[in-house]
């Protein structure tokens, strides 16, 4: 199965409640994927800041102290980079006032075994194995503010139950993708992307989708075009939610194998696998509620 809950807040006065709203949505999709989970939060004070790149690393324990990581990364960056490291739940966040590529290089050299699960100026990505609500609590989701949030509960089918196999997959700056379903030709598409020089972190089918979207965006596609192209290249069952620094997109496969429901108000756009995840949102009684049509790409920008 797998469950998805995503929220884009149009009304800034709701930003302080982003975490608590997303947490209430996540709570209703736990049954759909109780083995592992992941979260992506955008513009959350304390986790990311404007003008600074932040990398999200899998795991709280990177083998050396946070002070040692800070020192190691700082030594590889310009003196005014202000490198900082913090541990949030089961995630290590490394930030510095440099471009993401440079920070990725510094972190990869300092922590050779680390897995980068999120990168960008606006997003922090957190994922782990276990009960989704415990993962959310461990990371303090309830108290997080922000402009967008994305959550996923996984019932693994195509690759192992590992934190690395959890969603979202975030493989380019501020880009996140979550997936309910499975891609059947992911091995073929992975080979094609590898030939183009794309490097993969896992054997997961969804990572192929995320890398494909990132590759299309890099080639100049809009988010909508990238997802239309994904529909031509990747075969399988899917409901996907893709977020960027300021937009959110939803697409279902052309035969609509996997569920999705959307609620839209002046204050927010919310998407979930099931209506019950939307039932607790403010003003839901007056929201425009609809199921996205098969094969159609929906996008919303802040």
């Amino acid at each position, binding site marked *: 199965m797998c469950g998805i809950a995503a929220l884009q807040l149009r009304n800034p006065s709701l930003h302080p409640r982003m975490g608590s709203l997303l947490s209430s949505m996540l709570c209703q999709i736990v049954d759909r994927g109780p083995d592992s989970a992941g979260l992506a939060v955008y513009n959350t004070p304390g986790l990311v800041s404007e003008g600074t790149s932040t990398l999200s690393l899998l795991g709280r324990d990177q083998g050396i102290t946070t002070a040692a990581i800070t020192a190691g990364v700082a030594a590889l960056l310009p003196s005014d980079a202000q490198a900082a490291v913090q541990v949030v739940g089961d995630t290590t966040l490394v930030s510095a006032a440099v471009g993401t590529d440079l920070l990725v290089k510094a972190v990869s050299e300092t922590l050779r075994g680390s897995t980068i699960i999120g990168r960008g100026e606006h997003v922090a990505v957190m994922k782990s194995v276990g009960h989704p609500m415990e993962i959310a609590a461990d990371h303090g989701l309830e108290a997080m503010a922000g402009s967008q949030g994305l959550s996923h509960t996984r019932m693994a089918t195509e690759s192992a139950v590992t934190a690395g196999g959890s969603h979202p997959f975030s493989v380019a700056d501020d880009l996140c993708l979550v997936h309910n379903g499975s891609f059947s030709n992911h091995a073929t598409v992975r080979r094609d992307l590898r030939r183009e020089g794309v490097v993969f972190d896992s054997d997961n089918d969804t990572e192929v989708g995320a890398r494909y979207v990132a590759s299309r965006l890099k080639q100049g596609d809009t988010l909508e075009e990238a997802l239309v192209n994904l529909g031509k290249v990747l075969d399988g069952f899917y409901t996907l939610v893709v977020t960027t620094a300021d937009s959110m997109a939803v697409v279902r496969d052309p035969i609509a194998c996997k*569920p999705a429901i959307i609620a839209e108000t002046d204050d927010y756009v919310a998407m979930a696998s099931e*209506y019950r995840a*939307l039932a607790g949102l403010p003003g839901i009684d007056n929201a425009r509620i609809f199921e996205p049509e098969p094969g159609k790409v929906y996008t919303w920008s802040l």
Partner: protein
Amino acid sequence: MVTLTAPESTANTAPEARVPESTTVDLAVTSVRELNQAIHNAADGQAWTVTNPGGKHSLAVGIDADIAVTIEGHAGYYAAGMHQKGGVTITGNAGVGLAENIMSGRIHVTGDASQSAAATGHGGLVVIDGNAGARCGISMKGVDIVVGGNIGHMSAFMAQAGRLVVCGDAGDALGDSIYEARIYVKGTVASLGADCVEKPLREEHLAELAELLAAAGRTDNPADFKRYGSARNLYHFHVDNSTAY
């Protein structure tokens, strides 16, 4: 325990003024299991109101008494499944598998229904005022379905008996591999599935369509519809295909 909040007793009022007493079940404080057990224990003629459904799954399933259940709000998956007697009205949307395997009785949704509405239904009437998603009436075996809006793709797939009335448009592959159900569509059909063809709308069809529309409380003109059904070409193996394997 079910929280019963019945209105003032009507026992002393004159028979002609009697309104059926409605028992309210608030799902904010009562579990779905308790609700379903309570309506399984219900007696003919009772009225039940369900508040705060919150999209919960399996609401009001397996009703086998002549009762009227109103769900005030949106229902989740498999609402009013295996329905046998009485009626269920959902004043909102319904999730996947509404009225799945309905045997008889009546289900009415005032909003939209998700995929596979009335799937495998053997009898009864399912009325959806809004749109229905993909696979509406899949494998229907005698149920009547009236949809006020559009239906999604692969609807009436392998339909065996019953009537499907669509006042809006139908999605792709309508009636694919259909056996004997009758389909009436007022709007456009994106495409017909294998062995599903348009058929003439004769007097008896206009009459049954008028009956179905009236039963669903609709005022559409039966003459505006087109009828679709089985070309009966898939009933038997065709010897010309013997070399295809």
